[in-house]
């Protein structure tokens, strides 16, 4: 991959400077990034296991993409707002959302349980690319409020083929909206390789909208942080939208229902495993002496506790009353919903729970 990408850490963990994207890095920042990647990965591993033991209906693995997600999460200010797909576990980790909250949706308990206004992140969006429009709408609202905020809009390579993303970019450019589009190009839209959807690098598409773009190494957490932060700052200051293509790789299945061995080679997987974002950060921290054994042990213990918490909480989670789903469709009573609710209640009266 990735010879023409911006990178601040080589795969060997060596720090390199980029004139456009300076970044002050100290041991404390490195440790926070490390912790967030480790905990993101644990949430991912544990959730996959919970799905495989029948506790979750579905899970969308993150393995391999934690670098760009954690980097981008750290680039956001608390007042910024993010719209994400269903795979941005790393950003939620950085923004302090309890990982248990992410699993409500996948257990089918509720659509979303965090308060988007409090955490500054919208709900997991399943419909591919639709939230690119929400992102631009929110960013246009920021303009009208005169607020000192920006929007991070996260989607994948597959979403760039949708009409919604096209419309979003047209509007973002037309209104000079303070939004940064962050595409995690993980090479595969389920079983369709990115090379089938795009004959040129995705980043080059942005030029057609008049939106500046960059292509970065998505497995380099420092590049993810520096580039996203620079472009969010630029958007906040009235510089308008920007487009980041983070070149990375989904090493797991698209979802737990997918079998990637049917469409891709093990050699490809091995190649990307050698570019693992956590290994890269670890090597760098070893080089600069920021990775002492006590710290590593403490993070590992924290990850173990997180795993146990997820297991226990999810297994104990009760199924909601089926009639609850009718309660928040409209703010006020609605004739059709009332009728649907009554029909469901009638049906439930004919079945018993064993």
């Amino acid at each position, binding site marked *: 991959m990735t010879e023409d990408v911006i990178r601040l850490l080589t795969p060997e963990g060596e720090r390199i400077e980029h004139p456009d994207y300076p970044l002050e890095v100290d041991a404390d920042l490195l440790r926070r990034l490390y912790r967030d990647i480790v905990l993101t990965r644990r949430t991912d*591993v*544990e959730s996959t*296991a919970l*799905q*495989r*033991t*029948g*506790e979750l*209906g*579905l899970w969308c693995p993150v393995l391999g993409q934690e670098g760009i997600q954690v980097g981008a999460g750290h680039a956001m200010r608390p007042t910024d707002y993010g719209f994400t797909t269903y795979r941005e576990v790393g950003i939620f980790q950085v923004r302090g959302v309890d990982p248990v909250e992410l699993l409500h949706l996948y257990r089918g308990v509720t659509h979303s349980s965090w308060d988007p206004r409090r955490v500054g992140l919208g709900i997991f969006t399943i419909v591919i690319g639709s939230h690119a429009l929400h992102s631009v709408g929110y960013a246009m609202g920021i303009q009208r409020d005169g607020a000192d905020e920006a929007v991070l809009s996260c989607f994948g390579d597959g979403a760039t083929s949708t009409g919604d993303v096209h419309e979003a970019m047209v509007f973002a450019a037309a209104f000079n909206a303070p939004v940064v589009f962050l595409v995690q190009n993980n090479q595969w839209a389920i079983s369709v390789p990115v090379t089938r959807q795009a004959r040129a690098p995705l980043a080059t598409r942005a030029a057609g909208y008049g939106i500046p773009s960059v292509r970065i190494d998505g497995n380099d957490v420092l590049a993810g942080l520096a580039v996203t932060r620079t472009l969010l700052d630029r958007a906040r200051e009235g510089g308008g939208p920007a487009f980041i293509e983070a070149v990375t790789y989904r090493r797991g*299945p698209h979802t*737990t*229902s*997918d*079998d990637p*061995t*049917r*469409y*891709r*080679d*093990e050699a490809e997987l091995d190649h990307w495993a050698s570019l693992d974002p956590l290994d890269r950060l670890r090597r760098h921290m070893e080089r600069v002496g920021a990775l002492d054994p006590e710290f590593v042990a403490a993070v590992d213990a924290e990850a173990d506790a997180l*795993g146990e918490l997820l*297991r*226990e*909480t999810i*297994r*104990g*989670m*009760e*199924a909601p009353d089926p009639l609850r789903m009718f309660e928040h469709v409209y703010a006020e009573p609605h004739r059709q919903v009332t009728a649907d609710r009554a029909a469901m209640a009638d049906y*439930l009266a*004919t*079945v*018993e*729970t*064993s």
Partner: protein
Amino acid sequence: MSVREFPLPDVGEGLTEAEIVGWRISVGDEIAVNQPIVDIETAKAVVELPSPFTGRVTALLVAPGAVVPVGTPILAVEVSDREPVLVGYGVGHEQGRRRRLRGANAPQQGGAGRVESAAPQQEVTRLVPPGKPMAKPPVRALARELGVDLSRVTPTGSHGDITRDDVRRAASGNASSPAPIAARPVRGERVPVRSVQRQMAQAMVRSMTTAPHVTEWVDVDVSATMALVKRLRAEPEFADARVTPLTIAASAVIHAIRRTPIVNSSWVDLPDGSAEIELYPFVNLGLAVASPRGLVVPNVRDAGSLSLSGLARAITEVTERAREGRLTPSDSVEGTITVTNIGVFGVDGGTPILNPGEAAILATGRIVERPWAVDGALAVRPVMQLSLAFDHRVVDGASGSAFLADVAAYLHRPPH
């Protein structure tokens, strides 16, 4: 101490069953939470299941190869009672709550030969009362439109539901004609057709319905091949390969293609109705392998460029990976000609079906000592039968026969 059971989960959004491919643990093993314990194959994928418990395995409740419904206990683990019972995971929780119709008869299916089971079996919730025809709303709409009474229609849908075609048949007065497949009474055990087998079935039907097959046979005295195999096995160059008569047969095929390249080609239908024959300048030699998951046909890339030892190694490598179920999708695409060794099953010959898109396939039979006339006298010789099937759109009888004769001549007198 208490024993917990692990019911087979639905790992793929609405699956109803899975096949146990193989256990990674044995009775008596101490296992930990999240340790991989078993591989299962669903209609969607082969996946590895982790253990939900820490403890000692007391029983593997389902044997490899068995297909069991979701919810069937597959594993029993003795766990320490000193460990905190996971919240909501103790007695009474089981596999979540399920609903059934009040008063409905709820038979408890035995799971894979088990008599008692702690967790209730999965049941199908009947949303439609017995006797009422099942049909999806668009089908009901069609029936209304065509004035068809659904209760008089024979359903052929996979779930016993009425399809659009059923309604149309009924509307055209054919309702009483015997409905296909689903209406056939079940007299034996029905086994679902799964991924590899389904792919095989589709490939075979496609091949047989598009390519006119011709099969030719020849018997060949393989004394010299047997001697060569024996000699090569002792050579250091062949130390890391499994040399067999199949190795020499593969080499014979590559050799014979040089004189009759038309067998290493494809018939290509063009969108305008015309056709072309694509001749390949390389040989991607397919090998039909009986793998645990069924018939697979990986190929050795550019086999013609390999030395005999290189060919032997490549065949060994790809067949081993096939048998271990470690093939990747790219192993089985873009083959140009195939060899299938049916002799390993103890038979002499057959009429092989072409791998779709290819023009020829050679079957090698068993090698058996037979009376054989040599220089006017009777001798006992190891004899193998070769069966060659070819696509008669591409290959004519003269070319097919020349190719087969060349393969036979090579095996009779290998030039090594």
